């Protein structure tokens, strides 16, 4: 297996792990940060597939702005998910 394929497999595995983390965290701030990590790994995957334009857009919008909007929304409400 070439190092490139190994790197791509690692990034895809990380995508699945972070996606599971997003829905399993009860702390909403931690979930938002896991979403930022997911977006960063996704932009790395776009870069590996030789689409640098999409990678920059994903890193800017997904990892930066969406996380900021989530954090602002959490600041206005409450941080922990309620048990039911």
């Amino acid at each position: 297996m070439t190092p490139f394929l190994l790197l791509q497999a690692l990034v895809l595995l990380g995508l699945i792990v972070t996606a599971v983390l997003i829905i399993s965290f009860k702390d909403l701030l931690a979930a938002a940060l896991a979403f930022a990590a997911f977006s960063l790994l996704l932009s790395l995957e776009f870069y590996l597939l030789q689409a640098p334009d999409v990678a920059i857009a994903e890193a800017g919008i997904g990892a930066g702005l969406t996380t900021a909007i989530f954090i602002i929304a959490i600041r206005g409400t409450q941080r922990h998910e309620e048990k039911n």
Partner: protein
Amino acid sequence: MKMTKIVRTTADLFFPFCLVFGLYVVVHGHLTPGGGFQGGAVMATGTALLLVARAYDDVTGRIRKGAMKVCEAAGLLIFLCAGFSGLFAGRPFMANWLAPDGALFRTSIAHGPNAGDLNTAGLLPLLNVGVGIEVLGGLTVILLYMLSGIKEEKKK
């Protein structure tokens, strides 16, 4: 939720670098990967960093809502004016009439891989700058509106 001093100092340090990198991506849109939308998003990320780290009242001195609204409208106007300028040159709407023999951005390039020159590509740099300004203004205005809505609810 108040951010710590470490977060605030880091955001203050990062803010100008984010703006400069976004400006670089916008201006070099016709040479390197990226363009108006991506560069504007990077610049808006810089302002979002500042907005997350600080309270609304601390930020309004550096990022003004009115200026950002003007930025947004001006960006779309630049784009439309650049598009309509093709009509005055006797070419169709949005035609790249500056590219071969205009007054600005007219240097012609060789086919194939080359070093690149900022003074090329005719209308494309103008359109890039217009979209970049519009995206910066639009996304920042959305963030500012949301942040101001939160402040009102806390006061009640």
